[in-house]
């Protein structure tokens, strides 16, 4: 077995211990001395976006219905003996949960006591699927309710509509939860096939945060894995068509019962051409985040201008999301004047693109980002989430502190030049009913 590596990040006050087992499973401990809570996760590099892929050893692509990764996540909580994992955890005084994103599924458990039992159960249920025609049918009813809840939510709808307008062919278009039609195409055979493909240890990571010893984490994981006797596997090829830079449609309007309009505006682009160096990619990503903070953040003239004129009423925010080969950012709020918001924010972005980002705001953004990464160290759940999602994107979260010192205004400027273009913009608004 490979011996564990311990890294200490002085600037973040964080110690990280990790190793990779012979079957390919990565095991990581983010040490948090003094914390009562232990946060255990077992995650697979698999999510809503993975709808077309070539399984190791095969040559033809497999197509699966939208929403299957999330459906699978739900179903793993059901045990072959008819019991439920949620219930077992609850009886230990622990809180289990799971969530599915576009390229990850995270199973987690937060506990104070009974670490060994909680950890064993996590490793076991995730690797122990039990699907029947009957339990698949029952789940379709439950997920239909969850889909309905989403359709009642203006915040979800405005986002769904934005994504639908921004992207033409990229699987980023897929809703993680699927649709009522797509989830009814899910069968137990498809679920077993997806589990077999994506829940191999070489596609997964175990990450724990808390006041525990790595020896214990490793001992329990190794014991569980030995009994399962995994054979080495080739890699999974994800079939992702190239996304054109033009948006599918520039504007989408929708009416719902809301107190005032809800708006999101998005821009699409590429942070870097394919095949580049990961560290370089990470630095560009950080440059992009700082650009957004410097131009759209809460200490900019434009934000306060819109706030003081009451164009921004509430829920103001912006965010950057990256996918393989393409990325987007959006900015949005609740407003009585959605068009004014769209035009003023676009003007601010164009101005920063053409005349340059304010250097003072950029340095302030750098400081904020340093403060932010330190905050994340105090929040076990956020810390593990960031670690795992960076890992699946091929990035090292802890590099971030160093890269924040390196990143330059030029990098931020280049990002705006790439993304802020008329034909790369889409606008989504939810308007009140009559």
């Amino acid at each position, binding site marked *: 077995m490979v011996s564990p590596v311990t890294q200490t990040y002085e600037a973040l006050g964080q110690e990280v211990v990790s190793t990779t087992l012979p079957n390919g499973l990565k095991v990581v401990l983010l040490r948090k001395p003094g914390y009562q809570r232990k946060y255990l996760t077992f995650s697979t590099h698999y999510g809503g976006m993975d709808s077309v892929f070539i399984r190791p050893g095969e040559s033809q692509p497999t197509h699966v219905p939208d929403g299957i990764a999330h459906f699978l996540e739900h179903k793993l909580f059901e045990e072959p003996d008819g019991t439920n994992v949620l219930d077992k955890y609850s009886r230990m005084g622990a809180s289990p949960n799971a969530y599915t994103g576009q390229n990850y599924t995270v199973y987690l458990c937060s506990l104070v006591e009974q670490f060994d039992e909680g950890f064993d159960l996590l490793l076991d249920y995730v690797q122990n699927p039990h699907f029947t025609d009957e339990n698949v049918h029952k789940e379709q009813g439950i997920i239909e309710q969850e889909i309905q809840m989403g359709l009642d939510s203006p915040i979800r709808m405005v986002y769904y509509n934005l994504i639908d307008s921004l992207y033409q062919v990229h699987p980023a278009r897929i809703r993680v939860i699927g649709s009522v039609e797509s989830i009814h195409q899910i069968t137990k055979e498809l679920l077993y096939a997806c589990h077999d493909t994506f829940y191999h240890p070489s596609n997964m990571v175990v990450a724990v945060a808390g006041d525990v010893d790595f020896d214990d984490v490793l001992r329990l994981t190794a014991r569980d894995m030995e009994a399962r006797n995994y054979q080495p596997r080739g890699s999974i090829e994800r079939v992702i068509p190239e996304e054109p830079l033009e948006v599918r449609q520039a504007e989408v309007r929708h009416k719902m019962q809301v*107190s005032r309009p809800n708006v999101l505006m998005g821009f699409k682009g590429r942070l870097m051409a394919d095949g580049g160096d990961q560290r370089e990619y990470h630095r560009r990503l950080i440059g992009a985040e700082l650009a957004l903070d410097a131009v759209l953040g809460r200490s900019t003239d434009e934000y306060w201008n819109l706030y003081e004129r009451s164009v921004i009423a509430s829920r103001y925010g912006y965010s950057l999301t990256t996918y393989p080969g393409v990325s987007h950012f959006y900015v949005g709020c609740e407003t009585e004047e959605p068009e004014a918001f769209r035009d003023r924010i676009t003007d601010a972005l164009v101005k920063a693109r053409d005349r340059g980002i304010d250097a003072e705001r950029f340095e302030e953004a750098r400081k904020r980002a340093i403060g932010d990464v330190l905050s994340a160290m*105090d929040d076990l759940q956020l810390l593990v989430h960031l670690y795992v999602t960076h890992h699946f994107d091929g990035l090292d979260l802890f590099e971030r502190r160093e890269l924040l010192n390196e990143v330059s205004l030029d990098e931020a400027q280049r990002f705006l030049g790439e993304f802020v273009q008329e034909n790369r913009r889409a606008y989504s608004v939810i308007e009140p009913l009559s």
Partner: protein
Amino acid sequence: MATSPVETSVFQEFPLATGMRLMVAPTQKFKRTRVMVILHDQLDAERASKGALLPFIQKRGTERYPSGMDLERAAGALYDADLSGGVYKVGDRQLITYSLDMVNDQYVDGELFGSGLDLLAEMLYRPVTEGDGLKEEYVEQEKRFQIGRLRALVNNKIALARHRCLEEMYQGQPFAQHELGSEEGIMAADARSLLDHHRLILNTRPMDVYIVGDVDPERAYEEVRKRFVGDRGALSTVETTRVNKGVGEPREVVQEERMNQGWLVLGLKTDIPRKDPDRYGMMFLNGVLGGFVHSKLFANVREKASLAYTASSSYDANKGLLMAIAGIDVNKYDQALEIMRKQIDDTVAGDFSDEVLEATRRGLRSQYRMRLDTADGRILFHAGGTAEGAPESIEEATAAIERIGREDIVRVGERLRLDMVFFLKGSGMSSE
């Protein structure tokens, strides 16, 4: 298993002035330090809207940093120091809070602690004024935004259902108000009455400054004393919360909304104040009924009958209020109500296994211990307890949990009464 010493949540107390204390809990486990000023006021229909407006207006500017942007930039320069304010409705009290969250000095260049306290004191004591009022422009705009936030309740159906149920249960009482106040109260507030209210609460209301982080308590005391102690007038007392379980059959209220689902809320009242040890029994009762995944509501409403995606209950020990809620198909109202009522009856009758009882104990114990992992968890637990005359530590509460048995749950069950059946009924067509 690694064993770090178990920390205590006990705050070291330093008197600052009449009715004003500094409470410090030093700990090295956080990378950030949190400072929170908490002012206690009686929840009052006339004052609540003003109290809730103040932190929003004070974030708009100070004498030294006259605009919101200036204040935001000053905080940004301190490595994303987070300056915030807000209100909590805790029983029959309004807690008005101003807080600062900043990175520990050791991780960045510069001395942040003192500069951060300067900024917090500036926001707290020196709002922008015009004549004998707060700045008119900020006041009028924040009033409009506050009304917008109240109206936005319709966007979140679960919150709307819970709030409407509570409004019906406490009609005519201050507790029926939203924590942000009422539209009428907000409209009635003006620049002058808000400045008066600001002075009133700072001069006469109980006020505590909490600090959780890697600080030396003596030094923290010196730094806080320099900046936060001013003239205080006579202290006005704030009463503890009145609890009453009421009498009679539950009322039923149905309200239609344009949405797909329906939300069924059962509102129950107890006569147990927070300082009554029976509140631990009531916490168990809630835990068995709907506080956890192993609880009756989740097991029977969601898992067994597949009636709902969510089904749970929550207990507000400060007001003696228990609420059970389920998101259901509108056509399943009768069935869902019957099942939910049966779960309450069975819980009160002691009809649950020892295993469920012990699972609830473990769950509650973990929840208490996890409060030690966040600064806000420690501060708000202490502030809430102080308000209700039960300032016990998290350790004391955890110990109390160990002593509760089935007979306690059955006994406190007699102090619980179903008061309201509220249905927020979807009429379909949430969008077009």
